[in-house]
Structure formats: C-alpha cells, structure tokens
C-alpha cells in the first residue's frame, strides 16, 4: 500500500487521492447499465495514475453515456448532442497541463457528431475518447443508432433497421493520422481499466470503443457475446494492452497482433466470426495538432503589446 513502506527513499507527494475523491453525484443510470462499470474503471484509473482532480476534465455530449462528467469529481463540461469533441479539442488547445477525457455514445459520436469524430481523430490531440457503444438510442427510448445491427427492431424501425451499421473501429482506422484504436467490453472491468490506462498514457487521441450493455433495450448480440465469451478474441502483444494472466485466462481465444500493423488491424476489424478486444493500432509518432495549438503560449504581456504595436505601425500612414 502507498506510503507504508518506511524504507522507501521516494519523495512522498503532498497529496494522495483516494477513489472516493473522484466520486461525483450518485449515478442515475439504470441498474445493470454497462456505464456503471466503465465509471468505476475510470475512477480507478484516476486513482492509480493519481490524476489531480482539478487538472482532469471530462467532456461529454448528450445521451446516457454523456451523463458521465456529473458522476466524476473533477472538472466537467456536459455540452450539446454531438459536440463534445470540438469542445474537448478547444480545452486541450491551450491547456497542455490538463488530462482530457471525452465520454460519448454511438448516437453522439457516430451520428450527429460524426464530422467532429473524423476530424478530432485526425487532429490527434492528446486525450482519451471513450465511445460507450450500446448500439441504440437509450435516453430517447429505443431508436435505431448508426451502430444498430441490420434488422434490429426499434421504435423508428419497427420492421427492422434497413441498413448495415457503421463499424466505429474500421471507420476510425480509415482516418488519416489515427494514432490509437482499441476495443473492450464493459463486462470485463480489468480489461476496461487496462485499456483506458494504455489510452491515457498514449500521447495523442486514443479512441476506445467500449461495447456497452443496455439493460433496457438489450442488444442480443452483446447478450450472446457475454454468454459465449469464446466469440471474443483477445489481441495480445508486447506493445499492446498489458493485462495479467488472470485476465488473459478469461479469454479462450487470443491472437498475437502487432499494433503497428495497420493492414492487420483492418483485417481484424473485418472479421465476422470473432469480436477482437485489445489494441488494433497504435502510432506514437503521428502528427499531433496540440503541438501546434500551444504556439506562443508563453508570450509575455509585454511581448503581446509589442506585437500589437508592430502591427499598428505596419498600417500607419
């Protein structure tokens, strides 16, 4: 335990944050909602990494998953449907000292906010994007989402969804400059935590799709996945997501996959016989827009005025 070993030569930080210190309001998600487990994993991540609550910001849009910031004790921005990513990018732009997390859902990210999703992945600013994907619009009561399976009956498609769903992993892998693409399932908390930890440590935009159960409008696919874990395929690699053997043993099927192999990642995302969990792709050296946006951050007030005066002089007659 922390701080108990008297022979430690380590400096003891003046503050230590317990799990409780990251707990915000009492979650109002339905009992059995997969979001609860993700919330716990995130609070554990903050504790394990000792993220200062005041330096941590959770940004969300609208939907069940977007209630996330309210349930954390940290700074939060609960904005508009689909618009979490531009706000998060704006926060990141001039505040490299902050830890930025985005909680979004399949409707929020892949439908109304799809343009921002594509561009935020390309911007590759340092933050964690958690896509809590339950394949349905829950808060507005059972409408088809862009990730709903073809044929799924909803209130907007009572005869079944017409079209094949968007694959968020495949789509993200297709965006230039994507730098971290991972997938996990809400019902395996240690894997969620390990994935989010790797995401948080990755320098750039970490896209994590979390398959998330909705108890109210359940997705039969997820129920089946949970009941038959053999369909899950654990991706392993020294550069991948680090999980201990106990977690590994939960997965009957495992595959070694080098996360620098983009073509391999795309082939994995295409597999219909298995649902891969783990790290599809990582590129630590992708361009990062937040290296550009901090330009001039240290400019002194005097230099700002000098720049203004120089500009005014250029227009002097």
């Amino acid at each position, binding site marked *: 335990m922390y701080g108990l070993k008297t022979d430690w030569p380590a400096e003891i930080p003046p503050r230590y944050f317990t799990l409780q210190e990251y707990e*915000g*309001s009492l979650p109002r998600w339905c009992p059995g909602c997969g979001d609860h487990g993700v919330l716990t994993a995130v609070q554990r991540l903050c504790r394990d990494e000792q993220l*200062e*609550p*005041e*330096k941590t*910001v*959770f*940004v969300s849009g609208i939907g069940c998953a977007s209630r996330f*910031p*309210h349930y*954390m*004790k*940290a*700074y*939060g*921005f*609960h*904005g*508009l449907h689909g*618009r979490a*990513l*531009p*706000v*998060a*990018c*704006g*926060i*990141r*732009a*001039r*505040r490299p*000292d*902050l830890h930025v997390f985005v909680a979004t859902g399949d409707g929020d990210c892949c439908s109304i906010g799809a*343009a*921002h999703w*594509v*561009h935020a992945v390309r911007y590759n600013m340092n933050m964690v994007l958690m896509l809590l994907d339950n394949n349905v619009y829950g808060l507005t009561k059972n409408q088809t989402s862009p990730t709903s399976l073809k044929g799924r009956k909803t209130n907007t498609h009572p005869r079944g969804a017409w079209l094949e769903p968007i694959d968020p992993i495949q789509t993200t892998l297709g965006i230039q400059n994507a730098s971290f693409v991972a997938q996990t399932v809400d019902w395996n908390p240690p894997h969620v935590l390990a994935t989010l930890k790797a995401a948080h440590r990755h320098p750039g935009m970490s896209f994590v799709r979390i398959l998330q159960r909705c108890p109210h409008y359940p997705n039969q696919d997820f129920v089946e996945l949970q009941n038959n874990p053999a369909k899950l395929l654990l991706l392993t690699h020294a550069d991948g997501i680090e999980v201990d053997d106990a977690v590994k043993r939960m997965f009957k099927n495992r595959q070694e996959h080098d996360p620098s192999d983009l073509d391999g990642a795309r082939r994995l995302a295409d597999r219909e016989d298995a649902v891969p969990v783990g790290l599809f792709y990582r590129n630590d050296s992708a361009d990062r827009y937040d290296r*550009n*946006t*901090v*330009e*001039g*951050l*240290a*400019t002194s*007030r*005097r*230099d*700002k*005025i000098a*720049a*203004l*005066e*120089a*500009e*005014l002089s250029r*227009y*002097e*007659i």
Partner: protein
Amino acid sequence: MRTQAGTCAEAAAVSGPGRREPDACLRTAPAQIVEIVSDSGEGAQTAGQLFGTVCAKMGNGVWTVEIIPAEIEPPARSREGASGIRIRFGTEPVTNMGNKADVVVAFNEQVLYSRIDQDALRPGTVLFIDDKWAASSDARTREDYGKALQDFRERGYDVREIPIEEQTRKHTETPQRGKNMWVLGLLSALYNRDLAPAMDEVRLLFERRRKGEAVIELNHQLIRSGYTWGMEHLDQRFDIPARPHRESMVVMNGNAAVAMGCIAAGIEVCSMYPITPATSASHYMAGVFHTAGGFLHQAEDEIGAIGFALGASYAGKTAVTITSGPGMALKTELIGLAVMAEIPIVIVDVQRGGPATGLPTKVEQGDLLSSLFGQPGDVPKVVIAPSSIEECFQFMITARKLAETFRTPVIVLTDANLATGQTPFAKPKASEEWLSPPVDQSPWKKGVPAYAWDSETGLSARPIPGQPDGAFVLTGLAHDEHSHVAYASAKNQQAMRMRSRKMAALQKTLKPPKVHGDEDGDLLVVGWGSTRGAIEEAVDEIRRDGQRVSSLHIRFLAPIEPGLREIFGRFRRVMTVEINYSDELTDPLIDADSRRYAQLAWLLRAHTLVDVDCWSRVPGQPLPPHLIETAIRERLEGER
C-alpha cells in the same frame, strides 16, 4: 479629351511632378469619388487601395469600398463580373462611400453596366475606358464596344477613350498584370498626387508579397508611365487640398481592425470556418496572430469552430469565433449553451445578405433579431455593433471584457461594408490594460458554488479547470447554483432570472446615446452599425435647409442603450434607416396591421412603445447618403 494635349505637360515642366505650383489645368475640388472597375484578377482593387493610402498619407479624408463579384474568375467582359473599387476622398474626413462617381476608369466597357445597374454614375461622370476593344480582332467585341460607348454618351456620361493596354504593353508582355499600376499613375496625375508615397507603397506591397527588385522596378515604371501620359494628355486635373494629420494615423479595413482588436484584447484563440465576407479577418490573423502569442484554428465546420472556441474559453482562454450569417445559423445551439452554462465567448458576425446563402459578398444588416433571439428559450446575451472601422477595433477589447465580467457570449455585429471599407483613423495607443488577465489558477473558495449568483446583479465568479477545490461540471441542462441538474421547478425560474439580471446590471452602467443634431425636433432618424456615416451626412444635408431633423446611432443592441423613450419623446416622429427588408405602407396588402418592420424598428417599437417608423432597403450595397436624404425628405413632406 486630347484637345488640349500639351497644356498639362507644359505646366508640369515648369512645376515638376508633385509640386504645388499654379497649373493651367489644375482645379481645386473639396472631394471626389473615383472608381476603378475591371474584370476579376486585373488588380483594380490593389491599385485603388494604394491610391487610397496615398491620399490618406497626404492628409485627405478617405473611404474606399470594394466592388466584389460573386465568383473568383467570372467570365471576362461580363456585366455581373465587375470587380473593382471606389475611392471617395476629400479635404474633410470621409465616413461613407458617398453618392455618384465623378470619375470611373474602366478596363472594358461591359463592366460599366454593373455600375449603371447599381446607380453609381450620374450625367457628367467622366468615364476613362481602355480603347483596346475598338481594335479587337473579334467583330462582336468591336460592335459591343461601339454600341456601349454610344449608349454611354446618350446617357450623358463624359466618355474618354484612353490607351491603357497599349501604353502598358510598352513595359510588359503581360499587360493584364500591369494595367492597374499604369492607372494608378494616371490617377496620380489626374489628382495631383505625390508620386513618392505611391512608389513607397508599391515597394512595401511587393516586398510583402516576396517579389524581387525587378518586379518592383517594373511597377514603378508603369506608374511613371501612367503619370507622364496623364500629364501630357489630361485637359483637366484636380487638387484636393489636404490637412496634415496632427497625430499618427493608421488605415485599414474593418476585418483587419476586428482581427487587430482581438490581439489588442489579449485573445489567444480564434476559431473559424471559411465564410465570405468574414474570412479576410482570419487571413490577416493567420499571418500575424502567432507574433502576439495567439493561435488560429480552422475548424471542420462552423459548429466545430464555436465548439473549439467555447472549449478554450471554458479552460480560461476567452476565445473568439468569426463568421457571417449562415455560420451564425449553424452556431445557434452552441450560443445557447454558452448563455446557459455562462461561458464567456466573443462571436463576430460580419453580416451579409440573407437568408440562406443570400448575397455572400454583399452588405446587409439582417442578423440583428436573430442575434438577439435566435436560440430556443430565453437567451440574454450582449449584442453590440460598431459604427465605424475604428470601433471595429475598440469593440473587440470591450467585447472580451464584457464576456468575462458578465460570463456571457458577446456578439459583435459588423457587416460587409465595414469589413471591406478602408479609412484612416488615429493610431490606437496600445495598453496592457486591454489584455485579458492571466488564467486564474488560485484555489476556489470552499463552499462557493459554480454559480454564486449575486442576487442583485446576477454576476458570479467563473471557475476555471486547474483551480483546486473547484471541480465543477458545467452543463447545458437547466441547473441550480451548484450546477446540479435542476429537478425542482423553482430552480429553473431562479437561474433564468439571474441570467437575465446580468443584462440589466450591464444596462445600468451604460449612458444614453448622444443625439447628432438638435436635442429635439420634427424627426429623429435612428440607425445602427455601418450606416452611421451615411445617415449623418444625409441629416446634415437636410439640416442645412433649416429642417428640424436629428439622428441617433445605437451601439448596444442588447442590453439596449438606456433613455431611448425619453429621447424619442422629444421628437414628433422617429424612424429607423437600415439595410434590411421591411414592407412599405404603399405596397399592396400592407397597412399598419400587416406591415413587417425593419429589424431595429421592430426592436425599438417593442422596447419604447413609440410608433417608430422605418425606411430600409436591401440593394446589396451600402446606402448612399442621397437615397437616405430622399427617404427622410419624403417622410418630412408626408408629414405636412
């Protein structure tokens, strides 16, 4: 026009270029309006801006306005494709584009028709037209040229064919890219301008464009060539006496002023998406913002642009987003969020013709009511409108301060007229007080909620990520003072009241606007935004006849400036003059019951309960003073 060839040249030989010796064909005039019109890409605007700068440098009052076609490269010699510039300059300061042109230099005859359509010419306007088309190898072009010139003469214009291209070709193989400089030389002769400042400005311009000495020398040659030709062939030249400036002056357009105002305000983030006519502000910023520690973000769309700005503001760096009408429409929902969550942000709307895509390059004042009321629910926010290019600069500093003090979005309404117009004004004296304070990272006082609304003013301190013990979640949901979702009904009422109260608190700090002219009278003309110069000029003109007319210009639209009802009460009638649509009482079906008013009139009627009349037009160009004058006179006569 070549009748007196030699007269000016002889005079010049005696006096030398630029010297103010008496000259046989030199006449003094108080002011002039000159236009250069061409096909797109022939540099008319560059030449015009340079000419305007030279006039300003010499101490004249100047206003330049660009004539911009809708396309980048419309078909050559087309009426709709006219690209160019108007320069109005005179001994006194100039505040607007004025009425009809005195002189137009046209690179072809067809583009002149667009000026005729815009009612920019009068009988007697001198038209200098390139004569190259008379010798065109294309029979149709020769015919069109001949017909047009005959038509122009019949309309009473003073047509003068001049060899623009022929003379330019003596110096360059590509006269299309040199004619403008030759014309700059010609105008310098026509208006007795010093050549030295023109030469300096050309050097500066091409150095800025990273051109070599050869290009600069060629352009200098062309200017000298145009000047010499002018001195040899013009039978009439004008001198516009100047008053040397006592203080340093700068000259720029409204978009540059807005952008420079952002820098002056200490704003560090500008987030935008390209849109006409706002983009040039961002172009300017892209070039220099980093020198002042700023960053310009070109977002994926208008919504992303304001979202990014809002994020930066929330994180402590109050940001600006610059757009035009269609962009405002897209940003609507996030503006509502900024009101609800009380996040400071500055939004500049360079208004253009609407609705929808409307008139992208043309002026309109059509976004007033949508700025005030354009979001669902009650959305109290600050809306201000600069009335001059100088105010475009100043208002950005004010806007950032108001946004932070009142935790609110501030919308700054300019328009295409201010955006592209250029005029000199006193060089602002930069002050560190203008800059935003450093981001507050001190511990948040324990027990103070996220919205500790002062019960009288509605004001509250703004928590910024990084402040220990703050850790609030701001939300677009209805919330209480702790930023907790408001489930109790009284909470929503209270929060709405507090957000609204801030506007009253700001309004109490404002002074009533100053009346231009007498404090009472028969008619008060009320305007807002870019029309001030034209309205005041029209009112002054009518007042010279002894009529009891005054004008009032409103800069704070929300909260509205105080004391209006009292001021209106001192006039028998009140009307607004605006560049937006309103019904005319003389139109079919239109009566007092069905009439839709101009936007400010609508607002003032609701605010003051005074029967405010209006006269508004949507010509896609600034209102010239003479049209306003006619409208006011009609109102005064209708009264009798």
